[in-house]
């Protein structure tokens, strides 16, 4: 049979046409590849535009095209678009091949002649390949309606509530004893300064009481199997040593517990908790966890005060970690961030100079329910500062630490400045590189701070020292910085220094990423499917990211992403089934020699062996289409749809322009 192939070369405005002579490529394809079946070759400004697509559909209908090659951008961007175009015109979508002459040519090369030549080779490769395409039907697998949300910060909470309210089940897994995340540690939120607890607590309670949400705190995901629509997750429920059936959260146990422990997590080291505890009064769920590592009973074998006093007998020292298996269709990762360790910049004196604080410490210091009841005081716990310096960009925008901007620190620092000014009347100095206030109401907040009389010094702080040179400096912290707007080095004596530390990916982000089959950028944030057009999806179908895991962002942005991820998940749930690329391996029984070489190669155990017939067979539901078995089969009995030997060899043939050579040998 003969194929009728249409070739469509995209200008992409000047993105491609600026470097590649697209008209020439189209002309060349029409002439040189005519005898390979190319019946029409066009170039067009924007192939992906509706007009561009109509062009293809028209040709399919009128010229009866049986194959389509589009030379434009990366298949990861527009393969679907052009497959749909074919589908609309009644051509099987898988008979379309998209080759990239933008990412792979015009954007990475500068020599127009060479770029045009390369584009021709790539088109030729596409044409040869498409000849071998077969009509395929996407695999349809049912979507399990439940969703797993990992991380109970504001992004995760938002996502969970959106889905649960829509009537579908959600499993929320949180590593800490309570949900709430970092937002629960804050007192005020910028720029409106509404109380963090007041707006967060109701949402936390909703999650706790929601009939559609199974809340698993003090728990971690340890394993994930399966694929979009059908994931199996294993969750380790760490032993709480509290029977949640009986516990009423009355709080007597932690009142009676004699063991005080410094709380490095929620109180950022500023406050203490007991060995049995809930991190904060509004914690959800309300029942506590017993921290075995610090419990006197587990250390010394005696005490059991909590057990003695518990009115409902809910304490259970024998409790062990449990592992739960859950089936979910999709997963949303909202695991949040760690604070940059300011000890890595000793020039700022944290740990050496008592009154240098981290931003999280200050959040607790200024929090009404914090260790000082919201009083902003020095480490001694009583003295209010008369002057405070706030250092921006600590660990951010710095090649020695993190090159990226942490995006929240400017506004956070302005918030701090306001709180200090409001509660202590102290002189406040903000030392910044640039003030970045790019959201609704942010610039106005900056203006407000200026009016309040906060001092703004444009310069990255060089060091914080206690080495005074003058009587005024004696006993103070001296902030040494160049005031770049006047071009002078300044030494500013203050009582308190707040380091506005940057946001970092979770220390275990990489491992967690692997667990869910998604990868991190160079900075360690999870990579979204598209930086602009698909910020919450990942390269792995059915796994979404929301909040700071995707990159530094503030509360409004995190909430937006939580909702967005939820919407994406709901969309799939309501389709009830998901179409999957029909890229699968199949074994030709007649050719299979039963050597079983492929059996061991498959990481998904998709290949089973029929002892009776002495042949292997691929289970399409389990096969992920990597093609390793295809490459390995010595009998050539295994073929991979979409990436068959014929398709790849033919593309190679075309890329090397051997097809052209051969045609020259064979006279027309």
């Amino acid at each position, binding site marked *: 049979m003969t194929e009728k192939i249409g070739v469509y070369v995209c200008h992409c405005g000047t993105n491609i046409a600026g470097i590649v002579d697209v008209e020439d490529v189209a002309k060349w394809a029409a002439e040189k590849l005519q005898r390979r079946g190319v019946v029409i070759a066009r170039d067009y400004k924007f192939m992906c535009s509706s007009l561009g697509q109509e062009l293809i559909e028209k040709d399919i209908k009128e010229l009866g095209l049986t194959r389509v090659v589009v030379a434009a951008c990366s298949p990861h961007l527009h393969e679907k678009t052009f497959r749909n175009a074919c589908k609309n015109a009644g051509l099987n979508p898988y008979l379309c091949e998209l080759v990239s002459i933008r990412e792979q040519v015009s954007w990475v090369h500068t020599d127009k002649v060479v770029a045009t030549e390369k584009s021709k080779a790539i088109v030729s490769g596409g044409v040869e390949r498409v000849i071998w395409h077969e009509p395929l039907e996407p695999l349809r697998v049912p979507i399990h309606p439940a969703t797993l949300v990992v991380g109970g910060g504001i992004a995760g909470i938002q996502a969970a509530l959106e889905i649960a309210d829509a009537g579908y089940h959600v499993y929320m897994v949180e590593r800490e004893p309570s949900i709430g995340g970092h937002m629960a540690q804050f007192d005020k939120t910028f720029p409106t300064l509404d109380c963090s607890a007041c707006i967060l607590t109701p949402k936390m309670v909703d999650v706790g009481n929601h009939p559609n949400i199974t809340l698993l705190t003090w728990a971690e995901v340890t394993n994930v199997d399966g694929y979009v629509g059908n994931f199996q997750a294993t969750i380790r429920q760490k032993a709480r040593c509290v029977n949640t059936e009986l516990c009423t959260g009355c709080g007597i146990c932690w009142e009676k517990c004699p063991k005080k422990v410094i709380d490095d997590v929620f109180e950022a080291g500023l406050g203490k908790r007991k060995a049995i505890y809930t991190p904060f009064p509004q914690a959800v769920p309300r029942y506590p966890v017993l921290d075995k590592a610090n419990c006197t009973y587990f250390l010394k074998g005696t005490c059991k005060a909590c057990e003695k006093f518990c009115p409902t007998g809910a304490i259970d020292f024998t409790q062990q970690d449990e592992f739960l298996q859950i089936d979910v269709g999709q997963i949303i990762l909202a695991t949040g961030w760690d604070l940059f360790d300011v000890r890595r910049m000793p*020039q700022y004196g944290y740990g050496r100079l008592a009154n240098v604080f981290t931003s999280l410490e200050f959040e607790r210091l200024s929090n009404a329910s914090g260790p000082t009841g919201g009083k902003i005081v020095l480490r001694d716990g009583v003295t209010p500062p008369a002057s405070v310096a706030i250092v921006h*960009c600590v660990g951010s*925008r*710095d*090649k*020695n630490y993190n090159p990226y901007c942490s995006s929240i620190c400017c506004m956070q620092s302005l918030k701090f400045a306001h709180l200090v000014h409001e509660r202590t009347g102290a002189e406040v100095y903000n030392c910044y*590189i640039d003030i970045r206030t790019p959201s609704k109401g942010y610039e106005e907040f900056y203006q407000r701070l200026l009016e309040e009389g906060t001092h703004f010094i*444009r*310069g*990255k*702080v*060089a*060091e914080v020292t206690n080495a005074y040179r003058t009587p005024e400096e004696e006993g103070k912290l001296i902030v*040494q*910085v*160049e*005031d*770049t707007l006047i*071009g*002078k*080095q300044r030494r500013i004596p203050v009582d308190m220094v707040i380091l506005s530390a940057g946001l970092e990916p979770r220390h275990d982000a990489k491992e967690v990423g692997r667990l869910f089959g998604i990868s991190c950028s160079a900075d360690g944030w999870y990579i979204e499917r598209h930086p602009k057009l698909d910020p919450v999806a990942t390269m792995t179908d059915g796994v979404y990211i929301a909040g700071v895991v995707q990159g530094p962002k503030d509360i409004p942005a995190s909430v937006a992403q939580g909702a967005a991820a939820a919407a994406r998940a709901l969309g799939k749930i309501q389709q009830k089934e998901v179409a999957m690329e029909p890229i699968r391996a199949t074994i030709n029984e007649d050719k299979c020699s039963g050597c079983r070489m492929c059996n061991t190669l498959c990481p998904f155990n998709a290949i089973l062996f029929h002892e009776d017939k002495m042949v292997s067979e691929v289970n399409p539901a389990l096969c992920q289409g990597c093609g390793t078995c295809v490459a390995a089969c010595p009998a050539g009995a295994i073929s991979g749809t979409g990436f068959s030997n014929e398709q790849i060899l033919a593309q190679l043939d075309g890329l090397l322009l051997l097809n052209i050579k051969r045609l020259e040998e064979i006279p027309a």
Partner: protein
Amino acid sequence: MAPKPSFGDEVANLLHAAEGNPLRTCIQCGTCSGSCPVVKFMDQTPRRIIGMINAGLKDEVLKTNTFWYCASCYQCTVRCPSGIDIAEAMYALKRYTMWKNQYKEGLIGPTFSETFVKTIVRSGRSYEPLLAPTYIFSYGIREFFSEALNATNLMLKGRIPILPPRIKRLENFRRMIAHIIPIGGVE
């Protein structure tokens, strides 16, 4: 023909093992100037110098004493958030002005460095008595006496050699240097 390189590129070319022109990546944060122990004696802060270089203000830059006041303590270099080797850039400017003989009037640095090198080229070793007093007059008579006093003290404590030291294979040594720069250039 190739376009004349900008002043910034000229300076960048004098930086050892620098790819392209690192000065261009300066975000003017002032960490260098904030860290500099000598900054208050400089006509312009190091940050400004980089800004001026990037702005192509060649003459203004060469007129400053900034880079001759650089103590090469590298505090700026280790802290620069853009990874610019600022101390090295100051060296580059020193060399630049010495070659072109266009440094600020009345600076001692250039002539001192030159004599220092001359001494080495002559003897292979440095010799304090020759160095210090040569310039000390430029600080006025009081300085001279205090310096002299110091010298005598050092002498009494046996911390100043009476004769300048020399290395043994001096001839080879000089031929070696001749390979790198015309001895005439420094003698």
